[in-house]
């Protein structure tokens, strides 16, 4: 009985399914993704825009839960049942898929020229010879501040390190607001919002990052120790009991208006817009001296690649070229403020805070988080170690020099720079 019902259902669904494909030549592309939050944006904005221009190609966005994505995708790719297009995590996770020949080489794809080498670095082989995912979005670090608080206390937006600390002193002296909303309990806040946020200014972005990977610079060198020294000074401006303050605590302290400055990642914009009752602004990491070049962490976060076993590689490539186009960038960046297109063509965004963040790309040099490419793949992972040491430096458990030494020692234990 249940068997026949099942058969009927299968039959019916297959008939309906084929009936849905109006034209016989229609090709359906399926996108694997972990961004289930973005389902409506894909269904209502992105896919219709693509389908309108490309008759004959249908696109289906099929997200999995973020925590299950990597495992589910691996299983599907091994079984050969994965979708035509695969959303790529940055760096090693995707590189492994490419090395296993699950992802196709997209180096020559039309539209790839729209991206800078930094934008592509998360999905490029170590030697830079092949790119296997189209970069979709990045997140930018900086500081979000409470505009009302700044106006009330008469503080101008700080551009240099000295001005930054002067502003913090002023907020602290006034006492109404906690100067900086950050805690060290969850460790990664200290590393990601602290070290990787202000660091590029000191190690000169890509220049320092590349030198570190090549082994020309060490983490014990001054450009890498200095951000720790600055971070150590933050301690006095954090809230009471910051050692036990978690990431949601920091978010709440800021959106409730109890803190003046929030060391941020741009992904907060969407949440903060709905929660904060005051005006917000943003400024990039302050430079050492007025007139210095500013550097920002413009961290590559999402890409999309082609399943090497896809039955419709030509259509899929057409879609990928569209993802690489300014049109996609425009729709995507506006639908998800805080996730910025990596396209070289600047995108005009309607959200003022997001627009502020992205405007830094024009005046500052972008880089990605120093610990993500290559250096995180061994044991101990430099990224994880940086979490612990950044928190240690702020807590005062380790001095900046000791922290840097520990990191370098951990890295030396497994990483040998290519000569």
């Amino acid at each position, binding site marked *: 009985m249940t068997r026949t019902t099942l058969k009927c259902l299968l039959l019916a669904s297959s008939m309906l399914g084929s009936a849905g494909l109006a034209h016989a030549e229609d090709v359906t592309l399926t996108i694997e993704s972990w961004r289930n939050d973005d389902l409506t944006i894909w269904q209502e904005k992105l896919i219709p825009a693509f389908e309108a221009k490309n008759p004959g190609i249908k696109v289906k966005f099929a997200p999995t839960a973020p925590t299950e994505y990597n495992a589910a995708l691996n299983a599907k790719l091994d079984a050969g049942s994965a979708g035509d297009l695969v959303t790529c995590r940055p760096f090693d996770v995707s590189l492994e898929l490419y090395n296993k020949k699950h992802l196709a080489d997209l180096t020559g794809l039309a539209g790839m020229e729209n991206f800078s080498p930094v934008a592509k670095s998360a999905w490029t082989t170590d030697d830079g010879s092949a790119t296997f995912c189209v970069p979709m979005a990045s997140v930018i670090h900086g500081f979000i501040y409470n505009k009302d608080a700044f106006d009330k206390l008469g503080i101008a937006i700080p551009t240099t390190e000295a001005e930054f600390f002067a502003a913090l002193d002023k907020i602290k002296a006034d006492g109404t607001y906690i100067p900086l909303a950050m805690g060290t309990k969850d460790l990664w806040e200290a590393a990601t919002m602290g070290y990787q946020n202000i660091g590029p200014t000191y190690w000169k972005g890509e220049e320092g990052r590349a030198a570190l990977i090549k082994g020309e610079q060490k983490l014990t060198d001054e450009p890498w120790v200095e951000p720790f020294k600055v971070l150590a000074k933050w301690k006095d401006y954090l809230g009471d009991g910051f*050692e036990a*303050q978690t990431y949601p605590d920091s978010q709440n302290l800021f959106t409730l208006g109890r803190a003046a400055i929030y060391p941020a990642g741009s992904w907060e914009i969407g949440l903060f817009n709905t929660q904060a009752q005051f005006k917000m602004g943003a400024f990039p990491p302050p430079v050492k001296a007025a007139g210095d070049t500013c550097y920002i962490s413009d961290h590559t976060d999402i890409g999309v690649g082609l399943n090497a076993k896809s039955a419709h590689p030509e259509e899929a490539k057409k879609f990928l070229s569209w993802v690489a186009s300014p049109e996609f960038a425009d729709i995507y960046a506006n639908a998800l403020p805080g996730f910025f297109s990596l396209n070289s063509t600047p995108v005009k965004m309607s959200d003022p805070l997001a627009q502020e963040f992205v405007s830094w790309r024009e005046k500052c040099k972008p880089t990605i988080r120093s610990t993500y490419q290559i250096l995180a793949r061994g044991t101990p992972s430099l990224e994880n170690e940086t979490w*612990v040491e950044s928190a240690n430096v702020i807590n005062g458990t380790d001095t900046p020099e000791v922290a840097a030494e520990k990191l370098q020692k951990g890295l030396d234990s497994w990483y040998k720079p290519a000569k």
Partner: protein
Amino acid sequence: MSSAIMSEDSIQTPARAKRWHILVFLLPAFVIYSAVMILPLVETLRLSLFNTVDGQSTFVGFANFQVLFGQERWAADFWRALKNNFIFFAIHMLVQNPLGIALAAMLSIPKLRLATFYRTAIFLPTLLSFVIVGFIWKLILSPIWGITPFFMDLVGLKAFFAPWLGRPGSALIAVSLISVWQNIGIPMMLIYAALLNIPDEVIEAAECDGVTGWSQFWKIKLPLVLPAIGMVSILTFVGNFNAFDLIYTVQGALAGPDGSTDILGTLLYRTFFGFQLQLGDRSMGATIATVMFLIILAGVSLYLFGIQRRVRRYQF
């Protein structure tokens, strides 16, 4: 003696039917236990002797153990985790079990009113999920929204409040005490049951001899519940060296700050499954799991052969 039985058997029923039902009844338990306990254990032990060399799983002998104990980073992480684990265990033995015995002794006072209520209330946290306990205590101890600073302020002790979970010096003690709070119901219940098992005649005889109050507890009751205390201790030992969930929910997989709450369970988790950008290393994970297994095995053997045999049991 066995030969006597056998000879008796062979005389009485030479062609006795085979007792298949014994096998049949044993089979389900044997199959399930093998599938979910023995096989994974053997597989873990096997995996600890293998490692990936050039993409192939290869037998490497004790090389993984050499890495774990020989390489500075691995050894430092491991010894730190082991040391923290011993502190974690010591706090349970010094706080949880004596308190559990005290609570059980108080509950067994016949005149105590509302005994059932206390018993239930104290046992309740044991039934809660680790996630809930971890979350509740993180909130209670939070310096920003927590009620601890508020209550301490009411009694004028605000100056003694500190963000305990965030300080390397106090985090492990704080987490251990949370675990004590959660698990204290188990020693209490076991010892309470043992105390109730003491026959009234023994107590009455003691009273006739003039042994009452504290001296009755120390001289009569405590020796009688000693086997139960031994069992509680070994349960605590096994539980503590397998612990993971509470630390993971309260302090995260990196068991911060500065790894000060890292115990063997969290080290195993990070190594085996990987964390954030660190990729999982199944061979090294299995190696740590094997060492944990050996530590627990050694502890339990020490108890079984060294202590349990010497504990005097009283038959009533």
